[in-house]
C-alpha cells in the first residue's frame, strides 16, 4: 500500500469560482431570508402556533444529523483501523464540521430572538436536552477540530486514535441528544419514543455517508484526482447497510406504535391518511429514499455504475429530507391527545389536522444552510490539505498488488 499524499486544490478555475458564486448566492438568499424573519417576525413564514417548527428545522436537523454521520468514515479508519478509509478521514472530519455549522446556522437564525444567542450560551437549564445539545454541538466542533489536527500534523499522529475514539463516542452521544429532542416530548403522539435516538443515529450514518460519497465523487472529478473502484465498492456497500439499518429501526418504531391502540390514530395519519405526509413517507422516504438506492447499490451491474451510485446517494439525501419533513412537520400536524375519547372543537385548532404551507423565506434559509456547509468545504480544501491526491485502488486497498 502506498503512502497517502494530500494536497490543496488550486481553486482558481472558472468552475471553482462559479461553484462558489452559486453557493454564495444561495447562502446570501438564506441570510436575507433570516434578516426578514428577524426584522418582521415569523408571520412572514408558514410556521404558526400549531406547527411551531417548520421547513428551516427540516433542513437544520437533517444537516446536524448528517454532520455526525459524515464523521463515520474517519471513525472507521481511526477507531476500527480499516485503512482503506484512511485517505478520506480528513475530508470526513471537515464535512462533519461544515455540515454541523450549516445546520446550526439555520437553527440559530430561525430563533425568535436570534440576537440573544449569547443568552443561550450563558443560561443553561441542565434538565433540558436542548441545552445539552448546545454543549454537545460545541464539544463536537472542538473534538473534531482536534481530531483533524492530529491527522494533519505529523507530530500529533500518535494521538489520532485517541482523538478519533473521543470524537466517535461524542458523535454517538450527540445524535442521541438530537433524537432525544423528539424522543423526550411526552405530549406528542408521533414522538415520545426512546427509539428516536437510535433511529437518528442510524439515519445519520446513511445521510452523512451519502453526502460524503457525493462530495468525494465531485471533488475527484473536478480536480482530476483518481477515484478507484475498490473505495467506491466499499462506500456503496456501507451505504446499503446503513439504509437497511434505518429501515429496520423504522419498522420497529411503527410496529410498536401500531401495536398500541392509543397510537392507531397517528399511525393511520402518517401511513395512510396524511396526504402530503403519507406521500412523503412512502414515496419520498421509503421508495425513493431507501428501496431504490438499496436496489442500486446491491444490484450486480448498477452497483458498479458510478453515475448510478451518485444517483443513489442523491436519493438518500432527498429521502432524508423527506424523512425529516414527515417526522418534524407530520408529527406536529397530527393533533395532540388532550381529551381521550372526545371529539374536540375550539378556536385554537384543537382536534384538527394542523395546516402548514412552507414559505419562501423558510426554504431559502434551509437551502442557505446547505450552501454555507458546502462553501466551508470548498474553501477549506483550497487552504488546507484535506483531499488525498489519489483514491486509486493501489492507495486504498491494502491487498492491491
Amino acid at each position, binding site marked *: 500500500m502506498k503512502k497517502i499524499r494530500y494536497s490543496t486544490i488550486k481553486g482558481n478555475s472558472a468552475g471553482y469560482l462559479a461553484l462558489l458564486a452559486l453557493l454564495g448566492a444561495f447562502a446570501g438568499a438564506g*441570510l436575507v431570508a433570516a*434578516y426578514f424573519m428577524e426584522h418582521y417576525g415569523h408571520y412572514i413564514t408558514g410556521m404558526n402556533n400549531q406547527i411551531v417548527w417548520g421547513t428551516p428545522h427540516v433542513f437544520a436537523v437533517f444537516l446536524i444529523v448528517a454532520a455526525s454521520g459524515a464523521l463515520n468514515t474517519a471513525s472507521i479508519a481511526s477507531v476500527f483501523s480499516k485503512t482503506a478509509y484512511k485517505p478520506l478521514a480528513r475530508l470526513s472530519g471537515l464535512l462533519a464540521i461544515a455540515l454541523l455549522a450549516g445546520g446550526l*446556522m439555520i437553527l*440559530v*437564525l430561525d430563533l425568535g430572538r*436570534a*440576537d440573544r*444567542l*449569547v443568552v443561550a450560551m450563558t443560561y443553561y437549564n441542565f434538565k433540558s436536552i436542548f441545552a445539552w445539545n448546545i454543549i454537545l454541538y460545541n464539544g463536537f466542533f472542538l473534538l473534531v477540530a482536534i481530531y483533524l489536527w492530529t491527522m494533519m500534523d505529523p507530530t500529533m499522529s500518535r494521538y489520532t486514535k485517541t482523538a478519533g475514539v473521543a470524537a466517535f463516542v461524542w458523535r454517538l452521544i450527540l445524535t442521541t441528544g438530537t433524537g432525544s429532542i423528539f424522543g423526550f416530548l411526552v405530549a406528542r403522539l408521533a414522538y415520545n419514543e426512546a427509539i428516536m435516538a437510535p433511529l437518528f443515529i442510524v439515519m445519520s450514518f446513511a445521510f452523512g455517508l451519502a453526502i460524503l460519497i457525493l462530495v468525494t465523487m465531485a471533488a475527484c472529478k473536478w480536480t482530476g484526482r483518481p477515484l478507484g473502484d475498490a473505495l467506491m465498492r466499499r462506500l456503496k456497500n456501507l451505504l446499503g447497510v446503513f439504509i437497511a439499518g434505518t429501515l429496520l429501526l423504522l419498522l420497529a418504531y411503527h410496529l410498536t406504535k401500531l401495536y398500541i391502540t392509543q397510537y392507531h390514530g397517528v399511525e393511520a395519519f402518517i401511513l395512510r391518511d396524511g396526504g402530503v405526509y403519507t406521500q412523503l413517507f412512502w414515496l419520498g422516504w421509503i421508495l425513493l429514499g431507501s428501496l431504490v438506492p438499496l436496489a442500486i447499490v446491491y444490484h450486480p451491474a448498477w452497483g458498479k455504475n458510478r453515475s448510478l451510485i451518485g444517483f443513489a446517494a442523491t436519493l438518500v439525501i432527498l429521502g432524508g429530507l423527506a424523512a425529516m419533513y414527515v417526522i418534524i412537520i407530520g408529527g406536529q400536524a397530527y393533533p395532540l391527545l388532550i381529551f381521550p375519547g372526545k371529539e374536540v372543537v375550539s378556536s385554537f385548532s384543537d382536534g384538527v389536522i394542523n395546516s402548514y404551507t412552507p414559505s419562501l423565506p423558510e426554504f431559502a434559509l434551509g437551502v442557505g444552510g446547505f450552501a454555507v456547509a458546502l462553501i466551508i468545504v470548498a474553501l477549506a480544501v483550497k487552504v488546507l490539505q484535506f483531499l488525498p491526491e489519489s483514491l486509486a485502488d493501489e492507495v486504498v486497498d491494502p491487498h492491491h498488488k
Partner: protein
Amino acid sequence: MTVGQLSRQCILAAGLLLALPALADETGPLAVVPKPRAEANPEFGCVRPEEDMRKHHMDYLMVHRDDTLRRGIRTRDFSLAECVNCHITPKPDGQYARFGEKEHFCSSCHTYAAVRIDCFECHRDTPDPEKVRETAQQNPHRGLAADSNHPAGIMPVSATVGEAR
C-alpha cells in the same frame, strides 16, 4: 453569534467607548434629556439620586426584573412601568414620545450613547392611558397605585409632588 450580529456588537461597543469620554466631560455635548413629570422623592427627585441612577439604573432594573418576575416582589421603586409613568412625557403635539424618538427619555440617551436596549420590544414604551398621573396632586407612582386593590395602592405617598413641566 452570526458575523452580522458580531459586527453589530462590535460597532455598538466601539460607539460606547467613543461616547464615554463625552459623557464624562460635563461640558461636552450631552443628550437633551426630557424632564420627568414629577418628583418621586422630596430629597432628590427620582427614587435614587440622579447621579446614582445615571450610573446604576441598569443594575437596579436588572435586579428588579428578576425579583418581580421570578420571585413576585412588586416594590415600586425600580419598576419599569413606574419609570415610564414618570419619565415619558408628551411631545409638543401632546402625543407621548415613543421609544426611538429623541423626546423619549430612554432613547434620548440610549441613542446618543449607542447602547441598544430591548426593554420596549415587550414593555409598553408610554404610560398607560388609564393609569397615568395627570395632576400634580397625584402620586408619581401612579401605575400600581391606581390599582386600589394592590397593597401598594393604599400606601400613603411621602413625596411632595411638583409639576415638572
